[in-house]
């Protein structure tokens, strides 16, 4: 009935996603600006969604798909919070009157 294709495909996909983590982590460490780091964090969240889905396939347990959904939710909130933080911090310093 099953072709046995799914575990192979999931393994390849997991390898690709894991490889993708490396440049994103490098960008997260290197920066140079804080915007770059926030974007890299956002991308890591997406990679986490993918990894959760692949773990669901490899472990063959659909509950991990809910984890993927949860990471997607939290990742969005995190990105928006970081964006607000950056914006407010820069506006606060820019509007401070020069002596």
């Amino acid at each position, binding site marked *: 009935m099953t072709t046995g294709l799914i575990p192979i495909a999931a393994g390849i996909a997991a390898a*690709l996603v894991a490889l993708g983590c490396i440049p994103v982590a490098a960008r997260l460490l290197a920066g140079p600006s804080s915007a770059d780091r926030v974007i890299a964090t956002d991308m890591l969240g997406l990679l986490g969604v993918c990894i959760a889905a*692949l773990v669901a396939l490899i472990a063959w347990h659909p509950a991990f798909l809910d984890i993927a959904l949860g990471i997607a939710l939290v990742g969005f909130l995190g990105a928006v919070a970081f964006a607000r933080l950056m914006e407010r911090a820069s506006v606060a310093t820019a509007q401070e009157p020069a002596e």
Partner: protein
Amino acid sequence: MRAAVEMLAALLLVGGAGIVALAALGVARLTDPFMRMHAAAKAGVAGAGLLLLGAGLAFGTPGALLTSLAAVGFLVLTAPLASHALGRAAYVAGAPLGAASLADALSGVLHRKVFDIDPARTARPRPAREPFAKDNAMSAIPEFRRPADPAFLQRGQQAAEPVALRRILCCLVGGPAQAEATEEAIALARDACAQLVGLSGAGQSSPEWRGPYGIGGAFWSEWLASRSRARMRENAAAALHHFHEATSAAPQIDAQARHEEAEPRVLARLLAGHDLVVLPAGAGPHGFACDPRDEIASGLARARVAPVLRVARRPRRPVRDVVLVVGSSEACGALAAGLVRSGLWPQASIAIQPVADDRHGVRAMADAQAGLLRAHGRRVTVLPSVDLDFEAPDLRARLLRYDAAVLSCLSTRHGGFMDSIRNCVHEVTAEAVPVTLLP
């Protein structure tokens, strides 16, 4: 049927993973934050969506399919919002636009933080490193005060012989008062038949570790330093250009110009051997506007290598009224000697303005200097003393009639936490009077 679905799922999984890997590569390799965000938002969401769909299909149960569809829908709905907010924040925070951007379409629409913090725009300007010791005599804190030294007066009187102006140095650092300062220097050189040297290029601080950097701080600090150097050189070039024009209009003056870039203390050493240094008012160590106590003129006056003439506006010629501000600092005891030695304004009548003469030594210094000036044939009046708790506008109105002032320093403020002076006589004087001599 099941086999076809599984093949489709496998295809979606591998394809989605490939797109996500490409997006990750894009995040690392693209050149500016906006392009990186573009890779993360579009390719990343496409890849993750395909991969989730593949996972849902591979399970084949309605629950798993529904969960993965919900995750995809949620990603597709929220990723644009998140990346929009991130892009806006990155723009406002001043992330640099890459070389591929043709134009900044948002300039003037959004308030963008400037990363090139020129020293005048920072909220808390870093005080310039002072190569010379502070003069604490006028401090508001009694423990910091040192009484005036009577021996200093004696020394000043012995050395009070007028010196002919032979070499005048005009600092070309740029700023609003530079043109006036250049013209005043040329006029002085013409009157005294002196050699005029224009020295451009202000002090350049050595590259040193400036404390812990924020995120990406080393990169930006380097960039800022290069921007401020570039502006300094632009200022110096404009001032040099004006100097050349002005001196070529007066061919009888022996004038030369040079450009130096070195640390402040090296520049201060270059000034030695000049009889007078002419500086524009309000020029800080890098040629930008700054507080009076951080000015180049202030530092030079503390160094006491050469008398400093700080020009805010051109005075009327000849200078008729000069005011001498005598505080309780030791250096205030040698103002008259310095004025006589500089040989400036020989016809001017001189008013001595004591400050807080209830302090030790102020009255004595004022009288001694009046005697010294009278002995050199000047007309001297000693004004009533100014209380330290004076009102700045009153004093300014009284000082407006003077063409020049002789001060020991430009400001007696300490700055920072210990700064408890409401009004500083020296600052008000330097602001109100066109020309200030710091002997």
